[in-house]
């Protein structure tokens, strides 16, 4: 299976990065990871620009060299004057590293692609033969960290105090950190390495302070997040690295919710659940309310809530059109699909003619091209009809669907209102009235802006095609004669 090796690689990465993440959080230098990862990326880029493959000996040497420079710079953060905040210093390192990467890669052919890959990574391309190498390296570093865990932890905690700061242990930490980041950034990319580092450690810290358990829980959470991210990227056709980063964030949210539930004081669990449910339903109702308001104001704009409704229940624009309009709508949808299939049939025909039979002459290729263009333009004309009619249907839908949703969500929110507000009806009433007045002002303003009194151009076109080409006495509608075609008149 394609996802097996990336999943195993993620599990390994999470295991080692969670440990470093813990230290990073204790030291309070979250962005140091990004800066260090970007310095490694700079090293990989310099190697690449010099013509070495990233996984070759020279490539690894360059990457590690720059990561070591980054580590040295970070260790030197203790000597920066106290007017310069540590985070500012780290941010500057990050920006300089990124800008230098872009300048270096500018001269080499695969430029933009390389920069993007370094950011998002290519964890899909990891092969089963790379896994043992990672495992051995991380086992080695993990063993070292286990052996010197007490001084290292002491050094991490002592960062915020004046005494006990040790240059030696800082250096040990940063150099092992750069080795790990060097190894993972080329495969997983800067984004994912940041996620591997920070999020499992935070998830673990939410539940306990004991190091072993923090790492254990963090690893489980990270592995679960990797699995979810990889599965989502397969199911929903998403870019893998980005999907995994989002999955990690989701896992963090779930961890936070779980913590709230598990660590509630005795008897308070029910209250916690109630507060959570209340907050969740308030958020849902607020979203529905805002979508309904958006629908009322701008029915022709994109309406994600209505699209969701359509995919769930099948109630779409077709339901809100008059009989004749519905016929045109359905016809246009069908025709668009038909034209596109005709176009793709021609593409397949041309593709197969390349090696089957005698091949097509230039004239035949030109004719095919001309037909393809025509079919595409016809399909786009149909799309335009569908879009205009949908707009009209949405304008009607807002009264039948939008208004009830608006009222129900408002009522729901009022019910969920905190009791102290309900106790003071005068205050609630003034708030509601103000809100209503503001809403009406905005709606009126938007309506005037769009000149809703005037019939939109698309509707005029449809109306004319329905009425058989006669220009009816509509208001500021389009005047001027035009040739009647199946798709109405061309745009004015």
């Amino acid at each position, binding site marked *: 299976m*394609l*996802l097996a090796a990336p999943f195993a690689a993620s599990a390994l990465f999470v295991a080692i990065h969670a440990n470093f993440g813990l230290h990073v959080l204790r030291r309070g230098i979250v962005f140091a990871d990004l800066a260090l990862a970007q310095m490694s990326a700079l090293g990989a880029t310099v190697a690449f620009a010099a013509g070495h493959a990233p996984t070759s000996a020279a490539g690894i040497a360059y990457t590690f060299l720059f990561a070591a420079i980054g580590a040295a710079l970070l260790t030197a953060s203790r000597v920066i004057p106290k007017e310069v905040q540590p985070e500012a210093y780290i941010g500057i390192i990050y920006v300089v590293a990124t800008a230098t990467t872009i300048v270096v890669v500018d001269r*080499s*052919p*695969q*430029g*933009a*692609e*390389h920069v*993007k*890959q370094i950011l*998002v990574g*290519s964890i*899909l*391309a990891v*092969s089963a033969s790379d896994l043992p190498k990672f495992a051995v390296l991380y086992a080695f570093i993990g063993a070292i960290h286990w052996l010197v865990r007490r001084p290292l932890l002491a050094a991490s905690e002592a960062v915020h105090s004046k005494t006990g700061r040790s240059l030696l242990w800082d250096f040990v930490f940063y150099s092992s950190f750069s080795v790990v980041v060097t190894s993972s950034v080329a495969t997983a990319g800067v984004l994912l390495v940041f996620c591997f580092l920070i999020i499992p450690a935070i998830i673990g810290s939410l539940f306990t302070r004991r190091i072993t358990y923090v790492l254990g829980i963090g690893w489980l959470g990270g592995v679960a997040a990797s699995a979810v991210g*990889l599965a989502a*990227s*397969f*199911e929903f*056709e*998403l*870019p*893998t*690295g980005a999907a995994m980063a989002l999955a990690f964030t989701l896992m963090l949210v779930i961890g936070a919710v779980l913590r709230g539930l598990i660590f509630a004081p005795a008897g308070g669990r029910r209250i916690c659940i109630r507060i959570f449910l209340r907050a969740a339903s308030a958020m849902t109702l607020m979203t529905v309310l805002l979508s309904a308001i958006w629908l009322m104001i701008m029915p022709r704009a994109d309406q994600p809530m209505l699209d969701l409704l359509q995919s769930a229940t099948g109630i779409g624009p077709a339901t809100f059109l008059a009989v004749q309009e519905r016929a045109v709508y359905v016809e246009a949808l069908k025709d668009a699909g038909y034209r596109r299939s005709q176009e793709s049939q021609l*593409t397949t025909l*041309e*593709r*197969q003619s*390349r*090696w*089957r039979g005698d*091949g097509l002459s*230039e004239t035949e*290729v*030109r004719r*095919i*091209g*001309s037909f*393809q*263009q025509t079919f*595409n*333009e016809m399909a*786009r004309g149909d799309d335009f009809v569908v879009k205009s009619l949908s707009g009209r249907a949405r304008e009607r839908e807002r009264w039948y669907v939008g208004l009830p949703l608006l009222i129900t969500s408002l009522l729901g929110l009022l019910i969920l209102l905190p009791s102290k507000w309900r106790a003071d009806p005068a205050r609630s009433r003034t708030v509601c009235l103000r809100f209503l007045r503001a809403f009406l002002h905005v709606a009126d303003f938007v309506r005037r802006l769009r000149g809703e009194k005037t019939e939109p151009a698309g509707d005029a076109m449809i109306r004319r095609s329905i009425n058989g080409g006669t220009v009816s006495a509509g208001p500021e509608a389009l005047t001027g004669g035009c040739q009647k075609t199946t798709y109405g008149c061309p745009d004015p």
Partner: protein
Amino acid sequence: MHAAFASARIVVVATTSDIASLVSAVGGDLVQVKTIAPPATDPEEFEPRASDLSTLSDADLIVRVGLGYDLWIDKLTIQLHRPEFQAGGRRSVDASTGVPVLEVRGRNPVTEDGHAHGLGNPHYWLDPANADAVTAIIAEGIIGLMPAARDTIVANRNRFLATLHERIVAWMQQLAPYRGTALVAYHNSWPYFARRFHLNLIGFIETKEGVAPSVAHLSSLIAVMRQSGARAILQEAYEPKNLSEMLSARTGVPLVVLAPTVGSVPEARDYLSLMDFNVGALARTLATASQ
């Protein structure tokens, strides 16, 4: 008469190195050719610089690839305020005029993929037979500016086409045993090449420009490769290799690096050696694959 005009050279600026190679084949000593997009980069991703403006301002004639491939040239010509350089102008040549376009889409140069294949597939120079039409329109453009040099230009073109046609016969013989071979490419640059040499491109790794392909797409591509018995993966010289290498490792299908433009590999110094390299590399890979 020739001596008098030999010193009068016009400066022709081509957008890509392939067009530049064809321009110098047609123009010979009468033209000084400059290229804007550097040879080893992907011209579809090219972003023009300030220095390109000065290159352009010295030009007598601009030759573009067209079909939405080099839309950035319009940005430059507009900045120069020289309408004769813009599309349709007196000093502008669109090399795609007269080329039979494959994979025609519509009238919008940019598609939903964000890729400039909206008008049609723009990689038409990879079919050596299209060089007839391209050199014709270039010759017309140059002769329009230097009417007295007409005979020389026509002779240059005929000489070039004679060599090219001989080589086309040789190339077709080289690839004749592999007629109908199923191939996969990283990027959809090869339809014209496939048409000329009777190859069957069954799928592409990169469906959207610059966006990593999804896992589902790669899985289905692997299945299609196994089912159709794909014999090689065509990799453009400047595209990232890691996904292609992974696919190659999983399916056992060899990877062959081809040059989509002149200069993208060192062996492809001009148009003829570009086609030589591509045909040779593919023939060698397919020969070893079939053993």
